[in-house]
């Protein structure tokens, strides 16, 4: 069975807040749900499937379905960190194809900024984690985990800090057009290199923002999509792949995107060269470089050269990416960037991105997520979407 053409993204909404001191997490989930339903032209009564991840309070769907007063016949709380929401879209399509639901709501929300979260502090995932006794004593945090990937990539392939900086520069060129973006100032390669070193070789401007907020998407069966008055965005292919330390046979410079991307491209029946716009998970600049290689946009090891000289800037570069400003400049709600990756891909395919960054005739887009940490274990998820 394939999900190709079996489901459409009919609603998408990004919460405008970047600091939600006056809201609860559950409230943010409900607000983004309202936003996505309104965007689709649907109501709460139409929703019969609900998908959420670990950012949802309590027992995930159990708590949130009750809080929002949903009446659903399908739930899924697959948790793979920031890539969860891409996997939810794929699983929603599977559920729709199997006749288990017609209209699936996927929500994400969080308040890490209000709650003082930082990429230089350890995050605690609870007792009984098998890996934690061998990692927590060493001060593993988000920033130094990704920094080891960058250091190894530089060692193996000669990637430079200047090349990584270009990823941030491109994101900033897009963010200046986004009134909701946290960082709207255009930066240069020199600005990135002059920003404080956080974890060698990653500078402060190699890191994404920490923001409150959230987002939601609605996935629906073709019959539903066809009666709505919105441009139609169809799911063509999806792939998911966890990757870890492989029992100590480590390879930090390849991500799960090598497998999730291949699966998604095969299901969609398209090639990287066909993609007009790409949302690429950008927790750090290095995250983008590794995924672009693994997805096949360039050869392994040549990602640094690929992103340099503005190649990711919409309007001038070969592969416009993260035209909302991405996690690097716009928004990384709940420390999870996957939802916003899907949302901006939908905007591009609908022709509803900001006119300054809208890709002309954007018919085919890719959204790529990476949850967890590239430096230890992560789950990659890839979606390929088409404007019908």
């Amino acid at each position, binding site marked *: 069975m394939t999900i190709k053409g079996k489901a459409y993204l009919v609603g998408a909404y990004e919460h405008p807040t970047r600091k939600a001191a006056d809201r609860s997490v559950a409230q943010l989930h409900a607000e983004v749900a309202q936003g996505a339903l309104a965007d689709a032209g649907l109501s709460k009564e139409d929703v019969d499937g609900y998908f959420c991840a670990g950012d949802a309070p309590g027992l995930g769907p159990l708590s949130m379905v009750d809080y929002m007063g949903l009446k659903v016949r399908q739930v899924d709380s697959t948790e793979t960190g920031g890539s969860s929401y891409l996997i939810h879209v794929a699983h929603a399509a599977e559920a729709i194809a199997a006749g288990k639901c017609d209209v699936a709501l996927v929500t994400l929300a969080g308040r890490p900024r209000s709650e003082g979260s930082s990429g230089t502090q350890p995050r605690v995932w609870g007792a009984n984690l*098998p890996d934690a006794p*061998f990692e927590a004593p060493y001060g593993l945090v988000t920033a130094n985990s990704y920094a*080891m990937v960058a250091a190894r990539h530089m060692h193996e392939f000669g990637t430079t800090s200047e090349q990584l900086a270009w990823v941030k520069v491109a994101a900033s060129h897009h963010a200046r057009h986004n009134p909701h973006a946290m960082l709207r100032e255009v930066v240069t390669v020199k600005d990135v290199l002059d920003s404080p070193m956080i974890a060698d070789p990653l500078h402060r401007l190699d890191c994404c923002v920490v923001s409150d907020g959230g987002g939601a998407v609605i996935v629906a069966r073709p019959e539903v999509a066809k009666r709505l008055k919105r441009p139609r965005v169809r799911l063509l292919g999806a792939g998911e792949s966890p990757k870890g330390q492989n029992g100590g046979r480590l390879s930090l410079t390849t991500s799960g995107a090598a497998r999730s991307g291949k699966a998604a491209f095969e299901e969609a029946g398209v090639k990287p060269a066909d993609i007009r716009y790409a949302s690429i998970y950008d927790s750090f600049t290095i995250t983008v470089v590794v995924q672009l290689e693994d997805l096949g946009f360039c050869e392994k090891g040549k990602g640094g050269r690929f992103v340099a000289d503005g190649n990711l800037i919409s309007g001038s570069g070969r592969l416009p990416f993260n035209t909302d400003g991405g996690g690097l400049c716009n928004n990384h709600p709940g420390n999870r960037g996957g939802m916003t990756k899907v949302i901006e891909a939908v905007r591009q395919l609908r022709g509803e991105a900001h006119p300054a960054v809208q890709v002309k005739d954007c018919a085919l887009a890719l959204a790529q997520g990476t949850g967890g940490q590239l430096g230890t274990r992560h789950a990659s998820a890839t979606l390929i979407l088409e404007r019908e």
Partner: protein
Amino acid sequence: MRKIPPPAVNAENQPFFEAAARGVLYVKFCNGCGSFHHYPRAICPFCASDRTEWREARGTGTIYACSVLRRGGPEPYCIAYVTLDEGVSMLTNIVDCDLDALKIGRKVKVVFKPTDGGPPVPMFTPAE
């Protein structure tokens, strides 16, 4: 000095930390497929055999990747993956040296450092 959080010792990993307290680095070996793995499991992650056993590692290796975290704590520290001579890589810290001079590929040897209320943990320092 950074306070080193104690490892959460459980029934499966206890021998590793008891060995560390004696100044010995253990690595898990699987008699089913003849290979080492890390972090240690009761059941081999490669072949799923439960015929795994603790072996004393030589305690030497090379830096596979490293990064000095310079923000967020009282002082910089170096996190690293060290590839042991046995062939598996382990997450660790590189200590007792000039952190700015560390490079991937450098030979290192194990040292044991006390944690805040728990057993000591293996770290590494340049061998030469």
